């Protein structure tokens, strides 16, 4: 147990360190989110009423896309330089490595979105009652995005055109998260109860955490043969 935990920790730290060395990467998935969210009003025109209606959908679609964009690189770099081979040759279960990498990914891409989302509320003139639901739904839903994404990333590893193939595979799996996440924010607009949405989002996250690492490590093993 202790050895697993140490390995977990060192891999999380390594991934965070890599992200900090790359400097931009930490802020970038955030900026991508902000920019995508800001693009829509430009394309759609700025009728207040419409913006208000589409806000939940836009926030969640932007979250999906920005989580996905970085996902592609979740294992790719380690695969290209042979580190992943070394990870396979560890005596610890591969799931530990997977969980550590997913955890780092969420810290770098999910958490920042949660924190920046109030700004979106300003841009789209959401009511004050919608800000907290937006943050909650993102907090509960984004870990599922990272975990589901990891499965896709492992499956498409090393395939040429993997990035787009990846989106093709995982976007459908993201749909429940999108529907419930956007649903929670939309419910808050009419003061409807949101608890059911939160529970569903939480359930999705727990479920993905339970099955994801196993599926991902299996996929990684196949990809490396």
């Amino acid at each position, binding site marked *: 147990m202790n050895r697993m935990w140490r390995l977990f920790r060192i891999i999380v730290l390594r991934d965070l360190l890599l992200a900090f060395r790359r*400097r*931009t990467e930490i802020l*970038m998935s955030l*900026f991508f989110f902000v*920019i995508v969210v800001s693009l829509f009003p*430009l394309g759609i025109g*700025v009728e207040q009423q419409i*913006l208000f209606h589409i806000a939940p959908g836009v926030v969640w679609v932007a979250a999906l896309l920005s989580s996905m964009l970085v996902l592609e690189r979740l294992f790719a770099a380690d695969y290209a330089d042979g580190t992943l081979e070394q990870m396979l040759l560890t005596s610890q279960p591969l799931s530990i490595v997977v969980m550590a990498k997913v955890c780092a990914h969420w810290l770098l891409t999910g958490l920042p979105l949660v924190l920046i989302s109030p700004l979106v509320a300003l*841009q789209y*003139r959401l009511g004050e009652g919608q800000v907290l639901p937006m943050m909650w739904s993102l907090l509960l839903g984004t870990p599922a995005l990272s975990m589901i994404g990891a499965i896709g990333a492992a499956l498409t590893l090393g395939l040429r055109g993997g990035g787009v193939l990846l989106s093709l595979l995982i976007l459908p799996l993201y749909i429940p998260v999108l529907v419930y996440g956007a649903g929670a924010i939309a419910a808050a607009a009419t003061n409807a109860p949101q608890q059911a949405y939160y529970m569903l989002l939480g359930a999705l996250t727990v479920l993905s955490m339970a099955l994801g690492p196993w599926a991902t490590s299996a996929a990684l093993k196949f990809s490396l043969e």
Partner: protein
Amino acid sequence: MGINWFRYASPASFYPLAGKTIPWFVASAVLLAIGGLYWGFFETPNVLSDQKQYYRIIFVHVPAAWMSMWLYVVMAGWSLVGLVFNTRLSFMVAAATAPTGAIFTFLALWTGAFWGKTSWGTWWDWDPRMTSELILLFLYIGYMALQSAIDDVRRADRASAVLAMVGLFTIPLIYYSVNCPDPNQCASLHQRSSMKSIESNILWAMLTMTLAFWLYSFAVILKRVRNIILEREKYTEWVNELPEIRSQQVRS
């Protein structure tokens, strides 16, 4: 024979020159800012009193907005000079300008949003002016992000210079497109500048503030250029002979 401008284009001679002028810029910026704010706050009439006293944010908001755009032009200009004449100093000035420009952009956005909250009751609206200011902020951030993502100084300079110039080309396009999403209508509507309709008293206070901001920018940018010079030339002899560096070395 005129002045040999290229002499001052070398970091070694620019560094002390900048050092001497910075205090003057700081002093005059402070004086002008105090003067401009005093004028704006106490010597201008309550013309817009229906907007309550909040309108006085204009003395920060508009100069900041002007500076944010002007500094982008300055930055792109130095980038061009750098690419054409291959002078290291121009790249340093361009790099030093970006953070100040970004700060003014942010200031314009923030004061505008604040103003909007008090007078329109909303923090944000997709008004063309605001939108293009927001995009300008993105351009500044992109410029700085690109620069910080590249470790090799030479490449960082040149790549971000290309970006600045591409941005300069597109800013008018962006402004025009956002301002006028429907070209069928814009063609007939002429752009209204509020400059003429504004009371000259207010205008003068705004111009004073603009000048103050400008001098402030000079001071900060020069300071930043000096730091960049020290950072990049730390292995050259002249830097090691500078009194401030010497004293540091002795201490450590």
